[in-house]
């Protein structure tokens, strides 16, 4: 079965950076936001690695990545991602970051997907991360699916296999460290991925070169995309107030520490 795999993925600040909220004329943002190094959003990354693996096993399948963010940042991040696996980029030049409105983001992404020349919903698998590392809401993928009229949807997916009869067998995370297993007879479907099971692919220079040939023009013509800046009224954004005074217990026999911990557990 040949799938049209579309991976929705945004950008996120490198997790090792210190983040501090600030107020800007357009609402909350991050201190030095434009200077912060960015990465492809980690869970969207897992979705992309899984997409590459699926495309390899399902001949004729294609991968397109739809990404919304400031053009300059998209360019930086996509240069790195492009070294890993073959895909085509559909870039949307617009605001990034966690404080943007998920409803407008989902509209921009769904419109971009629907406008892909040759987009065939009956073959579509819409991938993305189950949450972003920025907004952390886990709502965009469902809304993209709804806007495209796709109501077979899966959240926190860790595994997808295709049965010989073409059915999609999907494992989703549920509470208590379990997975729910579902069988979806055929595409189209939305799969918002958790970690999956594949590591980050190593760089592959030929793939990088081939990707870059089509990616640069795609970035050039990144569609300017406006989101609704008034959708959310932020009253406040703040770092957690609590800082702990760490009591450091040193040079104490293990047995005494164990006794203290045992008492604490029983409290």
């Amino acid at each position: 079965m040949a799938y049209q795999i579309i991976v929705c993925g945004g950008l996120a600040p490198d997790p090792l950076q210190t983040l501090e909220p600030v107020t800007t004329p357009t609402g909350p943002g991050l201190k030095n936001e434009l200077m912060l190094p960015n990465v492809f959003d980690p869970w969207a990354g897992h979705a992309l690695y899984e997409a590459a693996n699926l495309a390899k096993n399902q001949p004729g399948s294609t991968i397109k990545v739809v990404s919304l963010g400031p053009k300059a940042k998209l360019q930086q991040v996509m240069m790195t991602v492009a070294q890993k696996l073959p895909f085509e980029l559909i870039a949307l030049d617009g605001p990034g970051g966690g404080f943007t409105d998920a409803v407008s983001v989902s509209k921009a992404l769904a419109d971009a997907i629907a406008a892909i020349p040759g987009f065939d919903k009956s073959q579509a698998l819409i991938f993305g991360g189950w949450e972003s590392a920025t907004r952390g809401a886990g709502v965009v993928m469902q809304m993209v699916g709804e806007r495209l009229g796709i109501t077979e949807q899966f959240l926190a997916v860790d595994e997808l296999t295709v049965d010989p009869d073409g059915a999609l067998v999907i494992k989703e995370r549920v509470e208590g460290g379990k997975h729910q297993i579902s069988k979806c007879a055929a595409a189209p479907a939305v799969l918002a991925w958790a970690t999956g099971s594949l590591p980050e692919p190593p760089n592959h220079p030929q793939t990088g070169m081939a990707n870059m040939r089509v990616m640069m023009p795609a970035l050039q013509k990144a569609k300017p995309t406006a989101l609704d800046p008034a959708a959310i009224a932020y009253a406040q954004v703040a770092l957690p107030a609590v800082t702990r005074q760490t009591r450091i217990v040193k040079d104490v026999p293990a047995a005494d520490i164990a006794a203290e911990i045992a008492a604490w557990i029983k409290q």
Partner: protein
Amino acid sequence: MEKILVLLHTTDEGALPKAALETIAAAAVIGAYDLGVIGANAAAAAQSVSAGAAAVFAVEGEQFAQSRYATDAAAAEAIAKASGAAVIFATGTMRFNRALPGVACRLNGACETHIVAIEPDLKVHRWYYRQRMEATLSRAARPWILLLEPGAFESAPAAPGAAATPIAVTVETRTTVTGYHAPNADQQTIRPDAQLLLVAGAGWTKKQKDGATHTPEAAGLILNFVQKTQSSLGSSKSLVDLSGEGQSVLPFLSHLHQVGQTGSSPRHRKGLATCCHGEEPHVVGWRFINDRRAINLDAACGWSRGKADVLYVADSFEVMRELEKLL
């Protein structure tokens, strides 16, 4: 006051999850509300907690007994329309986190998830950037679906009331739920309701004082502790990633255990970190753990800098061996 709907679902067994009573309590503080329940045994479950509700709705039947997007979304849409509420309080379980954002879109509204507090004027609190900063916000869009983080709100006692009005919903889906995959009972180490979270870090698999690794002993100490205390087990990313690199690892750990930036942010009263350095991408996953202790050989590890309440500078192997005798 705007009209509120409390939307709940039952478990596969037909009971309400614990967080359902938290959602009811959170709504009751704000104002009058309707109640809607979806799933197996929904009508009886709704009646068991409907004392405070103005109108009561239920969608049940075989198709709605399981957690599945197409059927849950259709049922939630039908109840939302029957109630006509402007604001919908719902329990932030995986089932509703999957289904309700799409319902918000269908109804031309909006949806907020992982809500940890709600002010009387409906400003909601939630965390951004993987629990690094907390925002207080509101929206004009209606209906506005609010998914409340389980464990973040006080719960109300269950008080039975009026019977539910059943709503018939028809929906087509290509998806069948075939079952669950869970670890064996003795390897079942993720317990969301546990008081205590034990976190294991990569140090458990590193060379120790004698120059050798002691991974099998580490596995025994950790599993034994978790079983005896009935605590939940979490892990650092480094430790779960090791399995992908062919090193000797702890067989009962998977990505589901990972706490942190790209893992989970579980909610437990206490947390004990062992052999884990306490780096920021890990510790952001501890946002909802109040009372934190760590055992680390390194007095300068991340936990020492205001991230734990107590840091024991000690060998986790030695402390856990002693603990084994006490528990």
